[in-house]
């Protein structure tokens, strides 16, 4: 592999200013602006989306948007972080925060699944299907294999991760060999996974749970005790927070290391920048497409495993068909700008939104949860739409340039 033809790091990671450099050069100042812009634009986007959401609340229901948002916030349990919240309120907050983090775990992982492919210049819209395939594999291993605790958990997680990787790998392979666009193939794979999983556990399906009186229950068997992830915060009977949280945090670290500190990551980023230049530089483009897609799918498959082994313990047709975790992963990755830290915080935001607007956590007398859930979708849509806000900024820039050019033309005329 020939180094040096390509920049060693992407332009968004501009060289840091030397310590003791009092008057940074123009380039460094620009780099700072870009880097701060890297945090500021997603923040602005989120604020803007919530602002529009607030207007929607005000116009359609006449309720105070701030009260509504406050109620949603209290439902997320994030007020647990405030030291002045004490007593019974603190106990409730802890329970709520456990739920929020429980939802954050798979969102981190599906967010990484989208982000990793993005860095290779591909749009993995198939996180949902890879998540489903992972969840189905985890349930099968969890329910039908018998071993002692640790091997069982590890086996279920590994099988689910590999299954997710293989499912995404189909799209990667088709992209690498015949150039089929990954957006089309992953959409198709999503729906194949959706219907196949619905059939597997559906009424009369081959993996529907057994037992007398269960013939009309479209669900899977429950995973064995040995396959369940241990709970480290809260009551296991009340869906406490399981150690999948640390798996997700570990995945963030792995994501960062693979992308920034390995030859593979270098190749993936190079292809993401410019496949032609990468090919010219001797980087195997097709191989990287396949690997990046498979690694993406591995993250999403892992997400399915943590959900099944952590708190769902079984799959049913409704939960398979209603799940949006993989799709929200797209918003997570975009808002997190495909960085590890960004993905963590945006996953937390969306996890909090999902939990704060749930029927159990939002007081219907303040705002109807069903409305709030749809409000979340609107906010999500606006975030995805405007996260390309740098596009907006670029647009304003180009307008300014155009105006200046016109002024220049007028001068010379």
């Amino acid at each position, binding site marked *: 592999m020939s180094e040096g033809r390509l920049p060693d790091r992407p332009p968004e990671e501009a060289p840091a200013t030397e310590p003791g450099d009092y008057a940074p050069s123009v380039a460094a100042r620009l780099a700072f602006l870009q880097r701060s812009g890297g945090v500021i634009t997603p923040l602005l986007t989120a604020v803007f989306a919530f602002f529009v959401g607030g207007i929607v609340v005000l116009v359609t229901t006449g309720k105070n948007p701030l009260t509504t948002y406050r109620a949603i916030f209290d439902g997320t349990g994030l007020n647990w972080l405030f030291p002045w919240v004490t007593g019974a309120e603190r106990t409730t907050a802890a329970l709520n925060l456990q739920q929020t983090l429980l939802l954050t775990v798979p969102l981190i992982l599906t967010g990484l699944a989208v982000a990793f492919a993005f860095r290779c210049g591909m749009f993995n819209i198939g996180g949902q299907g890879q998540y489903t395939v992972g969840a189905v594999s985890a349930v099968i291993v969890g329910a039908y294999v018998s071993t002692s605790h640790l091997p069982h958990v590890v086996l279920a997680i590994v099988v689910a991760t590999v299954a997710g990787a293989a499912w995404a790998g189909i799209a990667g392979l088709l992209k690498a060999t015949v150039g089929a666009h990954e957006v089309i*193939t992953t959409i*198709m794979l999503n729906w194949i996974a959706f219907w196949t999983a619905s059939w597997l556990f559906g009424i009369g399906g081959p993996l529907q749970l057994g037992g007398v009186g269960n013939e009309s229950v479209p669900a899977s068997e429950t995973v064995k005790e040995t396959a369940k992830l241990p709970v480290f915060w809260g009551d296991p009977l009340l869906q406490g927070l399981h150690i999948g949280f640390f798996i997700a945090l570990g995945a963030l670290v792995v994501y960062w290391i693979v992308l920034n500190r390995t030859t593979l990551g270098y190749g993936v980023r190079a292809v993401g920048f410019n496949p032609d230049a990468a090919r010219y530089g001797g980087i195997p483009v097709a191989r990287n497409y396949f690997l990046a897609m498979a690694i993406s799918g591995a993250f999403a498959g892992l997400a399915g495993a943590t959900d099944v082994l952590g708190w769902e313990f079984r799959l049913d047709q409704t939960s398979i068909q209603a799940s949006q975790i993989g799709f929200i992963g797209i918003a997570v990755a975009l808002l997190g700008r495909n960085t590890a830290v960004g993905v963590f915080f945006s996953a937390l935001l969306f996890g909090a939104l999902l939990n704060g607007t749930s029927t159990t956590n939002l007081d219907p007398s303040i705002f109807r949860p069903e409305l709030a859930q749809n409000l979340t979708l609107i906010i999500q849509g606006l975030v995805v739409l405007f996260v390309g806000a740098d596009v907006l900024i670029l647009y304003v820039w180009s307008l300014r340039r155009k105006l200046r050019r016109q002024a220049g033309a007028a001068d010379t005329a």
Partner: protein
Amino acid sequence: MTARVATASWAELRTARLTGVGGILLGIAAGWVALPPISTRSVVLPLVLGAAGIAAGAWAATQGEKRIGIGAVVASVAGIVVAIVAMRAAVDNLELVVSWGALTAASLVYATPLTFAAIGGMFSERSGVVNIGLEGMMLMGAFFAAWGADTTETWVGGVLIAVVGGAALALVHAFFAIHLRADQIVSGTAVNFLALGITGYLYINIYSDRGTPPDLPQIPDVDLGGLKDVYFFGPAFGSLNLMIWLAVATVALSYVAMFKTPAGLRIRSVGEHPKAADTVGIPVYRTRYAAVILSGMLAALGGSFLSIGFNHSFTENMTAGRGFIALAALIFGRWRPVGAFAAALLFGFSSALAQRLGQVESWQSYQLLFQTLPYVLTLIAVAGVIGRSIPPAAIGRPYTK
């Protein structure tokens, strides 16, 4: 392609093509004879027909008609498999499921929303703008048709308001994709989220838990009284919804518009080579805007059929992936009106068959597995097993002057 044309004369090519098409028909017949009303229980007839189909296909493939030839071989093999599977089932079960008149009518019903959305997608994608947002535009159409029909108390009002709703969402997609040069797939995804949120929010806010009123004005059926007692044609075409006939008309009109009018030529040139189009004075942005908005209107028409033509109500996320099947039909049909319609019919047929499988209790669970068929077929199509689907050249690329 041109080299092949140069070596083989037109007459030879035509014979090859006809033989290939004959092979496809033989393959279909191989499967058909094992189904009602003939229901042959001997494996000889399907095997003979299938073998003839394979032979015809193989010959056509060697004579320069590779795609049709391979298609005939695949159809014949599939026909034999269908026949063998069908023979293992009891005849009375088959007669419950395979009733050709009802199957045709149901296929047309399921194909109609797909056809509208796929034709819409064709305009957008032929102009160079990827439209992942078809699903959302369809959903907007479904909701606003129901709401419009409810408030104006006529189905015409419902359809018109649906079209406006779809166009509004398409305008958002167009503005971000064309003017702001955002990633078209990202903005399409965003538009889908938005539609889900907007329609869900309004539905809950307006109709609460009661649902849309039961007396929602409906798009009428077209009764062809004369056909009523005719075998097959009666049950198949006798009383179809107006929108179904409109979908067929849309296919014909869009074929003419796309390939026989200057406007169609403009759309295609903007999608293949925007720079060249710009050079000869075709307004790239304006053409793309028009195409994307038209796609939103057509997708919304499909959605309106779902809510006030077929389901008689609106429910949250009622499109349930139909926009994506429409996208699949568009790709499977190679971005052509008739091709997209044929693909929509095929997918509609698979849905109709899946629905009718429910008539036999022991086959019910396969209903769900059957739903994967359109997606598997499209995956095979883009993988290039039966000839590649090649998208318009400038698709997904924003144009900068």
